[in-house]
């Protein structure tokens, strides 16, 4: 075959280009330590790489979600432990004081119960971050309102027979249906002040009716402050005021109900693809017992205990009757705590799963995407050698003697 000069040049050129290109690719792999530097390097691999990256990013997010849920659960758990101790303490006080004959000790006990009540209320209104923990979906509203100042006294909020006490001798109770005596809680040894709230549509009207009813008793002066029309301020009548212990009615716990204004809304978190777990407990689950089978309203029970201890004359059964309820209350809190620890376990298991899974996805990603350094370097060496060889060949070819040299 004839070989022309241009043929030689062309072959040298195309070989050089090809080897240079391969050398460049090998160099890029070593420099970036990646097998896939652009989609065309490995289209299918690239698709997988993107998929794995997305999976890793999702797992990291699930991990964040779980961590934040775990923190919340731990926090809730601590609160429930404290709550359990408090309710349990109240339960023990029932047996300690149901036969207490010394009125002063009973008063002391009553104050202790009041303290427990206040602490339970504080727990019930705990905030986690900016949100109330036990308020269901109403996380920006304090879930339990102490109705001392009757500020939540809308007629619709009241149940027939709701009441608060003035000192140890009076109770003010609400008659929502205007049927007078029916519903009167009639605690032993107290004077009832009936407030007829039937048909009243607003807290302001209830406050006003309460004021009028209390005012009618010569022992008290009641006013509705002009700047807060749904609040009633009550003080003993300076003329006949013989009940100095009433002074704290505005601040103490005095209504029958500590009202739960949260709701039963569930808070779920995402712990995996399509997997959600509920992480919140509402006031109804722990405190009012409304969401629990054979639950009990802990506030009512504590209030009842305090009232019964304070009652004059003292009725033993009024105290001991509360033993069952408080035992239920302890169970209720324990039940909530157990649900939290089960939740915690589940979160932990899921987290462990994700940690392991992430490891394997990272591995798979690395297998597809990352260049094995040793292989890449060896390949670079090989390409270098090939390139040098083609350079040497080219040099040889151009240096070769031609016929001209011999003529």
């Amino acid at each position, binding site marked *: 075959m004839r070989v022309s000069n241009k043929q030689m040049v062309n072959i040298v050129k195309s070989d050089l280009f090809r080897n240079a290109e391969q050398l460049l690719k090998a160099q890029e792999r070593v420099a970036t330590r990646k097998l896939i530097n652009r989609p065309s390097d490995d289209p299918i691999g690239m698709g997988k790489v993107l998929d794995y*990256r997305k999976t890793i990013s*999702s797992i990291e997010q699930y991990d964040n979600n779980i961590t934040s849920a775990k923190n919340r659960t731990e926090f809730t758990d601590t609160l429930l432990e404290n709550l359990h101790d408090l309710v349990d303490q109240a339960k023990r006080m029932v047996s300690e004081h149901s036969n207490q004959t010394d009125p002063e000790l009973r008063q002391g006990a009553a104050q202790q119960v009041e303290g427990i009540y206040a602490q339970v209320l504080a727990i019930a209104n705990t905030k986690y971050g900016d949100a109330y923990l036990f308020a269901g979906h109403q996380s920006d509203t304090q879930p339990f309102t102490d109705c001392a100042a009757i500020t939540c006294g809308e007629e619709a909020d009241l149940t027939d027979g709701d009441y608060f006490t003035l000192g140890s001798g009076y109770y003010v109770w609400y008659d929502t249906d205007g049927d007078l005596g029916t519903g009167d809680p009639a605690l032993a040894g107290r004077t009832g002040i009936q407030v007829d709230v039937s048909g009243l549509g607003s807290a302001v009207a209830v406050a006003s009716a309460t004021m009028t009813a209390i005012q009618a008793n010569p022992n008290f002066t009641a006013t509705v402050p002009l700047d807060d029309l749904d609040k009633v301020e009550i003080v003993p009548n300076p003329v006949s005021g013989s009940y100095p212990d009433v002074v704290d009615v505005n601040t103490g716990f005095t209504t029958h109900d500590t009202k739960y204004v949260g709701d039963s809304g569930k808070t779920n978190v995402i712990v995996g693809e399509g997997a959600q777990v509920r992480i919140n407990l509402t006031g109804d689950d722990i405190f009012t017992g409304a969401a629990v089978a054979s639950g009990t309203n802990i506030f009512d029970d504590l209030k009842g205990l305090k009232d019964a201890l304070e009652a004059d004359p003292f009725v033993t059964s009024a105290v001991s009757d509360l033993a069952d309820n408080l035992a239920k209350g302890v169970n209720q809190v324990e039940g909530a705590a157990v649900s939290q620890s089960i939740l915690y376990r589940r979160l932990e298991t899921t987290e462990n799963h994700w940690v392991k899974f992430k490891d394997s996805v990272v591995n798979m990603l690395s297998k597809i995407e990352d260049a094995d350094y040793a292989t890449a370097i060896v390949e670079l060496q090989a390409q270098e050698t090939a390139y040098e060889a083609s350079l040497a060949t080219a040099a040889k070819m151009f240096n070769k003697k031609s016929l001209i040299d011999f003529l």
Partner: protein
Amino acid sequence: MSGIYGVLQTGTQALLAQQKGLEVTGHNIANVNTPGYSRQTVNMQANAPMMTSQGLVGTGVTARDSKRVYDGFVGTQIDNENEDLGKWDAQKTALERVEIIFDESSDSGLNKTMGEFWNAWQDLVNDPSGNVERIALLGSAETLAFELRNTYNKFSPLQADLDISIATTVDQINLKAGEIADLNQKIIEAEGGGSHANDFRDARDSAVKELSSMMDVTTYEESSGNINVSLSDGRSLVNGSNASTLSTMISDSGHRDVVWASDPTVSINSKISGGKLKGWIEVRDVIIPEYKGNMEDLVNGIKGVESTEVVTGAASTLTTGDYFTISSPTADYNVWYNIDGGGGAPGGNEIVVAISAGDTAARVASLTATAIAAEADFDASVTGGATLTIANVVAGDATDSADSGVGTTTEFTITKRIDGGNGINYLHRSGFDQSGTAGGDFFSGTLAGNDFAVDSNISADKIAASGTAAGSPGDNSNAIAIAELQNALMMSTNTTTFDNFYNSMVSDVGNKVRHAGMSYDHHTAMVTHLENYRESISGVSLDEEMVNLIQFQLGYDAAAKLIGTTNEMLQTLINMV
């Protein structure tokens, strides 16, 4: 002529012939590096012998002309391969630029941005009333919208660049066509005398070769020596010494289409099947629009697109959440259909029409009328079985039925959700923001309109994380629903997720570039091979030329010697006198 003078004559002719040989050899050596050059050989022929008394006597040599050594078949093959090579070359370079747009090789890009967007929704799930989470979500939503727009907008400059390439190439084609026509004329003129116009022919072959790398052409050589070039639409680009002109026009899509200058409104794009033009046109008009369409689909999927569609009102044509709008002087109402207790209000003032699957148009019309009539502002009635008439009943505006949005036929113009329509906007409207108001559209605008963005009404507190009405700041159910869209099969008629849809798009780009690269390599190898083959026939070998040089030199020396010898013989004769 015989005798001693005849010998002298033979010697002279031999000198001239060898000289011609040397000239041709020199020409070959000089053109050793000229592209497209074919080596030439001298056509030497012994002269006709003379009848003398001694019988037939040779009369020397004549160098008739020089001829190029050329295999026309290889030339045609190279031209054909060049068409493919040109096409893949153009496609490869253009697609490599598309590939850069989808730069996902590093740990950044749309894939990551999308992931961060969905993760931000999950952060909101963890703290639905947290302001930080809301602002962060808003930020990542804006980033996502920006990245989507940004990626999409990178396609247009690329198309514009291809427009320029196409226009420039059309100019070059015209130039080459003119060159070929010129050369046709020169060849005819030169060869009229019976010689070979070797160099003109080489130049013409080169021009045809270059032309074929730009677009697919058919060439045909007439017996006169003319080459006629025609395009695949059958029209002739070069006919003898006349060349037609190509031009470009702006098509409906705003890009440059190739046309005949004589017929400047008829695009011949579809007729072009090879060369760079084909490669560019395909990338510009097929591949890039496909990716643009995919990006638009992706955005529409994320957003959830609604289309206005005329449907007959039977339940089978409706999907829960389909709605139409009617206006009264006091407010606009969205009348929406709820099939078997589904959800998905379009938001705003609403009139819910509860229907059941399988309801006929008449029944749907009747239920619609009842639901609308229940609203104080309207009066609605059904006549003729399924004809719904709606009228405003507010005093003084009874004629406003033009606003009703519903004609008096059985066909309702209903806003329907198209494929993947249950996107973010749909879910967002079903939820409630921090002040308990129903959420609005989350994203608005389109990629094509370059205005795809987080809806201007959305601020941090307007993000609808809650699934229950009015004042449930701790409710995260709607945020969960939206966050879970990430894993929902929302794309390609509900067969794939957003992420996978995008990932396969990137893979597809990679595949196309790879394919173009491989085809380019293949055709390059083919052309190189053929070029080598051509070179081995037509290329200049310096060694060979050296041999020829010496051969002709020796011949020349010998001829000179012949003349010298004859001269001596004549001297001898003269001295005898």
